[in-house]
């Protein structure tokens, strides 16, 4: 093909693509979810309902919320991506004969 040497033409493997897409999309969704969630709930109030003596502050509350959402979204879309994997069809032995 023309100009092959100039082009990063090797494509990513399906698995690599899946890992990066899952990571990135769940990052974006988690960012939006964090904004929406903490617009309605104050982390300090929430932590108070779990344990009155736990005082980790708002900063840590926001960070924990964000990573929780990220992990949740990544788990969800990761499992989905894993379950919908398809392999190329192979001809069965009978058909080959």
């Amino acid at each position, binding site marked *: 093909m023309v100009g092959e040497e100039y082009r990063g033409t090797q494509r990513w493997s399906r698995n690599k693509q899946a890992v990066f897409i899952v990571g990135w999309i769940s990052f974006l969704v988690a960012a939006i979810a964090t904004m929406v969630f903490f617009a309605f709930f104050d982390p300090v109030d929430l932590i108070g309902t779990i344990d009155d003596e736990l005082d980790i502050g708002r*900063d840590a509350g926001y960070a924990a919320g964000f990573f929780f959402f990220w992990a949740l979204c990544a788990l969800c879309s990761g499992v989905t991506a894993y379950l919908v994997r398809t392999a190329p069809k192979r001809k069965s032995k009978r058909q080959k004969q």
Partner: protein
Amino acid sequence: MTKPQGAALYESAKKIYPREISGRFENLSRIATVVLLGLFYAVPWLSWDERQAVLFDLPARKFHIFGLTLWPQDFPYLALLLMILAYSLFFFTAIGGRLWCGFACPQTVWTEIFIWMEQLTEGTRSQRMKLDKAPWSFNKFRRKFSKQFLWITFSLWTGFTFVGYFQPIRDLGMDIVALNVGGWTLFWGLFYGFATYGNAGYMREQVCKYMCPYARFQSAMFDKDTLIISYDEERGEPRGSRKRSDDFKAKGLGECIDCQLCVQVCPTGIDIREGLQYECIACAACIDACDSIMDRMNYPRGLIRYTTENALHHKKSSIFRPRVLIYAALLVILISILAVSLATRTPLIVDVIRDRNTLFRELPGDIIENSYTLKIINQSHEPREFILVIGGIEGITLDGVPEPLIVAGGNVLSLPVRARLPRSSSRGIMHIDFSVTATDDPAVTVIEDSRFLGPSP
């Protein structure tokens, strides 16, 4: 694509060395980079009324944007703003194609700066390719080291700036100088800095090709009148090399001299002559490259140009299509709603929370009592006195309201109150309302509905 699949599927991506180019669109792109990054790095340093002009103060749950201070309760504005941004993207994509990708996307803009630093330290495209192939030497180490030094410094500054949107940036600078930075602050700064370093230094076009959701769905906003960057096949083919003095028409050639400059400058490594491809981020580098060759050959410019599918097929292109008009109408509506609601916004929020533990209490003297907690948020910057009135049922009274009722500027007052009603007026579930009015300005009024529960008669 006719590439062999299989083993190649598991090879890592080859590095792309985009060739440097100058021209009209490269200048536009440089201007966009300088303006957008300039804004990003400069805005946290602006001041407004003795505070940082743009500060998303998460610990205090307040968002300062110049003269405007938003609270978490103002969430609808954020939702509106996000919708406006989404529809703007649809609108501009329908008209101008992937303008966002080529000129405004942070990925493109930061990559542009990182490639510029790479050129500064490692030289031109061919020098960079040679350097990467060469064995380690002092020269190679020196060049690679300077590049990494520039990249890492720039990334750290980017992370610092990012955190500076959430914490007062001047204090943050002092803290860093004094080596007294909080754990989360340090974490987010490094996180953002590392993301910049990885995305703009190494991932580059692979983010657009494999990870970007917009790249996947932008084609849904395209039609035959959308601006695309395209090679004029009719004019260019059959391609072939020739001397400048040759009469190419007599040789049966088109105007493409097959110099491959358009491929070499492409940051995503595609050949635009193969037609519209989803990898194309519409950066227009190939237009500049081809125009420079056309000028040298004394051919008219525009063998590769911004055009539309209709124009390429000699049909009429129009800007005003139903799709564009619908996007525009939605944008106008959303922007008007945002503008009107911001202009008529009262700097007062009242939340009424009914005590859920008890339905009602019976007091001596046949009185029914319900408890509520009122959150009165004074969004103005000065302390204000308010009048609180309960209404909705004849004969209802309110207990527990301090006289005078004053809320400090930018503060929330949590006020437990009790509403009382004679048993004879009780009718089961009844609707009541709390109205809060500023004494100095009757226009600042909020009426909140709630319910009063009592025994049915």
